């Protein structure tokens, strides 16, 4: 599938954000800020992190707050895609209701998001 690595990267990062919020009992926003604050400034790592949070943060907050998991978030933000004829790739156990309806609901949540107007840039 195209962009398998982007999908793995997204699921790992969103998982870490979700688990930081869980471990510190904080909001998703605070968890993203915390993660960026841990990164060194070298190689623009910290500033790149804050830029990514600015672009994708609002959608990630909405989706995680609606109890969507990292698989759903990354498919909704199109870092993961199920190519035609390909299996659906997911790291976590599937949600109780069907994957299709979960994804549809998630897409409704971010429907008005300016982010998804951009092509899914790396």
């Amino acid at each position, binding site marked *: 599938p195209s962009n398998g690595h982007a999908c*793995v990267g997204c699921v790992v990062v969103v*998982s870490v954000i979700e688990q930081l919020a869980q*471990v510190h009992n904080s909001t998703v926003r605070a968890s993203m800020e915390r993660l960026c604050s*841990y990164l*060194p400034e070298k190689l623009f*790592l910290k500033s790149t992190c804050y830029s990514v949070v600015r672009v994708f943060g609002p959608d990630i907050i909405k989706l995680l707050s609606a109890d969507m998991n990292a698989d759903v978030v990354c498919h909704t933000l199109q870092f993961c895609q199920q190519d035609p004829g390909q299996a659906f*790739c997911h790291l976590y156990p599937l949600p109780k209701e069907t994957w299709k309806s979960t994804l549809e609901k998630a897409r409704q949540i971010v429907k008005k998001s300016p982010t998804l107007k951009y092509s899914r840039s790396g």
Partner: protein
Amino acid sequence: SDICSLPFLAKICEKIKSTLKNSVPFRDVDSDKYSVSPTLRGYHWRGRDCNDSNKMAYPGRRPDNWDVHQDSNCNGIWGVDPKDGIPYEKKFCEGSEPRGIILLGDSAGAHFHIPPEWITASQMSLKSFIDLPSALTDELNWPQLSGATGFLNSTSGLKENSIYLHLRNRNRCNHRDYQNLAKNGASSQNLERIIESLSRNPRSDHPAIVIYAMIGNDVCNGKIDPVPKMTTPEQFYSKVMETLKYLNSHLPNGSHVILYGLPDGTFLWDHLHNRYHPLGQLNEDVTYERFYTFLGCLQVSSCHGWMSSNKTLRALTSERAEQLSNILKKIAISKKFTNLDLLYVDFDLQAVMKKWQKRGGQPWQLIEPVDGFHPNEVALLLMADGLWDKMQLQWPQVLGKENPFNPQIEQVFGDQGGH
């Protein structure tokens, strides 16, 4: 999105791309393939240059006029003993048979490692990502801690040494004479470009011990059906012979090539599949089986053949690995070269596991936790120690002599300029 399209970054991007493609140091003023900076193929990968404005001063060369006036081979030994006017390099190193270590390998040999604290929320802190810039500019490899050329103290507290440190302890004249030419994704089939980054002059340099350790990518790929893309024994034989001919024409006489066989990677599934991956430890929801399935589904698995729930596929992968190992065995026994001799050694994960279990360790503790595939630092050092023991016992001629002047070298030159 492509930061390299910015005009003022185009040149530096070009240089970095060239460094990554050709596996040569990014910063190398005298273009002798040795550097004074650590990452981007610098001294984490090859002995540190002691004079980056003189291309005739580099690790591993025979001394220029016994290094009376300068340290031409970067082993920290130079000058003249005032007591008798004899150059130190002549007094301490002449006849001691110095030699270097060169690794031709893949991500295992480069010591690919993603620290688990980078993805474990419960352990994460300001300190977690301190090494991230250095690791990124070394392509997520840590050759400075690898089994073949590592020169830093082990982070896992093991007392075992890398092959390079063993060689240095045996003869301090070998100081800084190491080259880690391993590369992520390297296999017998794509070695041409990497091997050109090897730095050795048959006339002016000391002999070398070359370790050929392509231990996975000839049978590992991310395809849903990985078998068709595996290297065939015929392809393997052809490329290995091509590599050996290249080495024979580029290495000083008296060099040695150690051909490492491929491992039986069923070890991974057997000891990891039902354990939790770092991402799954908080909520006990992601096992390595699930992690492998996810990577396999996306076709980005490091080795779908072994990282698979399909027992038949795992066995097929090991079968091909064994076929390729047998090719290496046959080559080592039957092929002769003018400047080098060939030795074969098994990549014996079981032996490493037994050694580790004797110390109370568990097999799963020998594998990188984040990628669930690469041998970790413990495994690499135990493997190196096993190879060193084997060479000492069976092939002492490979190692050169123990230098009786080591204590004097240490007394006069201390750490010889370090690494």
